[in-house]
């Protein structure tokens, strides 16, 4: 904004009429994008709109079927990322592209290593990374292992990777999705730094407020094609959202409490030891979930939420503490017994823990419910009943797929998630452990899932909700706990807390003492 932009100067990046098809899908169709030098240019669009695909095209990861890429007014063709890197383009991917077992240094220099007499010149690399880290305030230590880093640091490593290659144009694909507000602010500080140095930034986000705060101009993509550009200074978030979706957005929810007195889950002093020894990953957690209550767990990723969920599901042993389901002490129960006892589970990573991707849907219906009718009869699997029940779930929960015999891979993420939700609901659990139930799911599916959770709550199901989506947490939860370094540091009232406050607790910037007591 501060830098006066010369309208007649050639554009840093111009994409003309880009079309990219995948088997059966047109991911990008006749897309236009014009990015001026030295600006932060945001691209917004709903899930699956084709943003990542477009950026991958610009980064040389695949070639467009039609259309042209121009850099500084010159047409270019990229055969591989290496070509794009050479042309000064760098990309930070939506999914981190880091080798955990490598150090920061190794991750950064990979692919363009400084060498001295055939050897990797670590000294030179270290100096260079330190330089970059200092001048853009990234705060990196070149010699730590990436697996020891948190998400924010990892993202900065990704940015350092790009800067190290001398990129003049940076693509950031949903960089803020995994960050808490404070980290987002730090990142925006970094971006401002980059801009000051004259770099061009292309920035993808679903968070429209952020976009309006940081971008100089915005391009909106819907269903694979450009629907227009917007000026962040004059466009409201609501207008932007409607451009994205192409329809009016629904109004906010009215909340009414359905919490009853009977507890379904009680935990006291639950502690989980780290696999490699050292500090406990879950540290003396005490909480309870009552019938009809949604208890939200907020926290920056990697603060023990995943381990807490694992401990409840029996996937990790307790080092100490008590775990009660209703009146029964389940601390020593196997995962299977816990599931039979009435715990439903929506795992955070559906591909890893929720589905058998190569198996048909009806087998995925059985997964997690192997000991219960209708899909199972005695020691045998009842294929017919499993198929029938899968068809029922597909109809009731709007899972869009040709039929129960379709392989799970063939479904989009949202449909997979709906199947999982439907499957878990069908067993009528007393307690549902839902970890990131709408992660990576687009708007339509997301609201369906939210509705399902609310209905279940109304019927008396207790829900433990772990999420990184602060809005989701705030709007769904009846009680909200904040987890930091394995411990519950604050209990907040979701009706009164703002995302910013919540973020403050999550990063430890605000101490738990001034927490607002919950109902």
């Amino acid at each position, binding site marked *: 904004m501060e830098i006066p932009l010369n309208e007649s100067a050639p554009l840093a990046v111009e994409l003309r009429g880009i079309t990219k098809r*995948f*088997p*059966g899908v*047109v991911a990008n169709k006749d897309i236009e994008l014009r990015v001026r030098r030295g600006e932060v240019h945001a691209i917004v669009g*709903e*899930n*699956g709109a*084709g943003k990542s695909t477009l950026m991958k095209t610009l980064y040389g990861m695949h070639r467009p079927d039609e259309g042209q890429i121009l850099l500084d007014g010159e047409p270019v063709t990229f055969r591989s990322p290496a070509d794009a890197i050479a042309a000064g383009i760098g990309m930070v991917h939506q*999914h*981190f592209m880091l080798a955990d077992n490598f150090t920061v240094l190794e991750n950064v220099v990979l692919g363009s290593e400084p060498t001295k007499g055939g050897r990797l010149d670590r000294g030179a690399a270290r100096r260079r990374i330190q330089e970059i880290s200092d001048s853009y305030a990234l705060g990196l230590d070149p010699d730590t292992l990436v697996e020891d880093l948190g998400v924010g640091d990892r993202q900065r490593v990704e940015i350092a990777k790009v800067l190290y290659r001398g990129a003049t144009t940076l693509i950031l694909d*949903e960089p803020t*999705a*995994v960050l808490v507000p404070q980290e987002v602010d730090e990142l925006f500080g970094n971006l401002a730094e980059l801009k000051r140095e004259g770099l061009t930034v292309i920035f993808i986000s*679903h968070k429209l407020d*952020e976009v309006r705060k940081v971008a100089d101009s915005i391009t909106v993509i819907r*269903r*694979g094609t450009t629907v227009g550009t917007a000026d962040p200074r004059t466009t409201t978030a609501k207008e932007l959202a409607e451009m994205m*979706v*192409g329809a009016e*957005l*629904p*109004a906010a929810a009215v909340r009414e409490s359905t919490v009853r007195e009977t507890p379904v889950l009680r935990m006291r002093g639950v502690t989980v030891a780290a696999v490699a020894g050292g500090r406990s990953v879950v540290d003396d957690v005490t909480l309870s979930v009552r019938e009809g209550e949604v208890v939200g767990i907020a926290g920056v*990723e990697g603060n023990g939420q995943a381990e807490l969920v694992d401990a409840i599901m029996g996937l990790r042993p307790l080092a100490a503490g008590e775990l009660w389901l209703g009146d029964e002490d389940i601390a020593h129960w*196997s*995962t299977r017994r816990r*599931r039979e006892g009435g715990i439903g589970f929506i795992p955070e990573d559906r*591909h890893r*823990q929720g589905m*058998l*991707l190569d*198996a048909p849907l009806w087998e995925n219906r*059985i*997964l*997690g*419910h192997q000991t219960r009718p209708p899909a*199972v009869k005695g*020691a045998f*699997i009842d294929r017919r009943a499993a198929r029938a029940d899968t068809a029922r779930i597909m109809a009731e929960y709007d899972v*869009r*797929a*040709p039929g129960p015999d379709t*392989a799970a891979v*063939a*479904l*989009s993420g949202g449909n997979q998630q709906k199947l999982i939700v439907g499957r878990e609901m069908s067993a009528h659990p007393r307690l549902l452990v839902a970890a990131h139930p709408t992660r*990576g799911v*687009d*708007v*339509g599916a*997301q*609201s*369906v899932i939210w*509705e399902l959770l609310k209905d279940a709550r109304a019927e008396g199901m207790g829900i433990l909700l772990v999420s*990184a*989506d*602060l*809005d*989701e947490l*705030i*709007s769904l939860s009846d009680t909200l706990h904040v987890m930091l370094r394995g411990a519950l540091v604050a209990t907040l009232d979701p009706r009164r807390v703002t995302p910013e406050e919540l973020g403050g607790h999550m990063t430890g910037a605000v101490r738990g003492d001034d927490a607002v007591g919950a109902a």
Partner: protein
Amino acid sequence: MTALRRLGLSLMAPAIALVVALALSAAVIVLIGQNPATAVGVMFDFGDSPAQQTQAIVLVLNRAVPLFLAGLAVSVAFRMGLFNIGVEGQYRIATVLAAGAGAAVALPGPLHLLFIIVVAMAVGAFWAGIVAVLKVTRGVSEVISSIMLNFIALGLASYLLTGPLRGSPEGASIITTSEIPESGWFPGLNGVLTGLGLAEPRSELYGFLVVALVVGIAVAVLIKRTRFGFDLRATGMSASAATASGVDARGMVLKAMLISGAIAGLIGLPELLGDAHDYNTEFTAGLGFLGIAVALLGRNSPLGIAFGALLFAFLDRAAIPLQFADIPASVVTIIQGTIVLAVVIANEIARRVTRQQAERGNAVAPPTSGDGSTGGGQGPGDGPPPDVGPTTGTGTGVGVRNASGEPGRTDSRQGAGA
């Protein structure tokens, strides 16, 4: 249409592979200055007289029975991502102990047989169980431990044969265990063959064929139709998903290895009970390793393994007529190796194609995505109107997604490296 095409594809793959392998082998035969057509003719020439023809069939079947069992043993472990390279050792040690035990007791016919079979299965299971226990309690890779246990089994079998279980007199050129009394011999099936109107073959068709069939069906039912089989396959497809679903992964490792080992224990029995009646220094070795190839050929399904075993047995039998036609028998091994490689490559390509079709088929399926631009078709425009979404006043919360550390989909057979 898709079902038919899928079936076609799954049959096409092995067929194409077979053709490729045969073409390569033909090239090899040409290289040594022989006519491939003759070679093929020779391989399919089962002899002139009916007796010779049934004999050829019996030979193929007798060879196929242990190969089938070996393939089954390997496949059960493979199904859950365990690479049981130790089938070789498991059947060796099982056979020698079963032979020793069988010779040591006197029981009425069927009981005697049952006793020997149970001993063999128990020993095989025990030997495989060591691998499982080491893996579960000490994290020792099953690949290393079963390689080591193969050698240990070989040495131990040798010790048992030359020491405590030796039945042959000093100086006899082949060391054997004591002969199993006739009550412990498995009756042959030539009666059935002649009953079917076939000519009486020279060799006895192993009665163990029946046991192998029963085991094959049992394994098929176990894997495909039971809860246990579901757990096993689920663990093989995704150990993490299976664990989250309540499968006890450690227990499954143990159970799968025990079953695999128990089946491995049967491999030596067709020969032991149907023909040799003792274990000796010349007892057929290497069936465990062949079993791996057969399991791969059969894509770990019992029916496929049966075909794989028959194919290998057929090729094995061809070694003799080929030599009569002055074609070296090593051509057979080359054909076997090429077939395995060609089949696995073809399978992989077929798998890709079907998977791609499945994905494509779904991507275009939703009716409303007119221009096909969004694959999932879940845009709020075509779905049910999004209901009351939890939004804060400013409307930021649309579709936040979190992508950190989401490991991509992989089709890992995690038995492989570690």
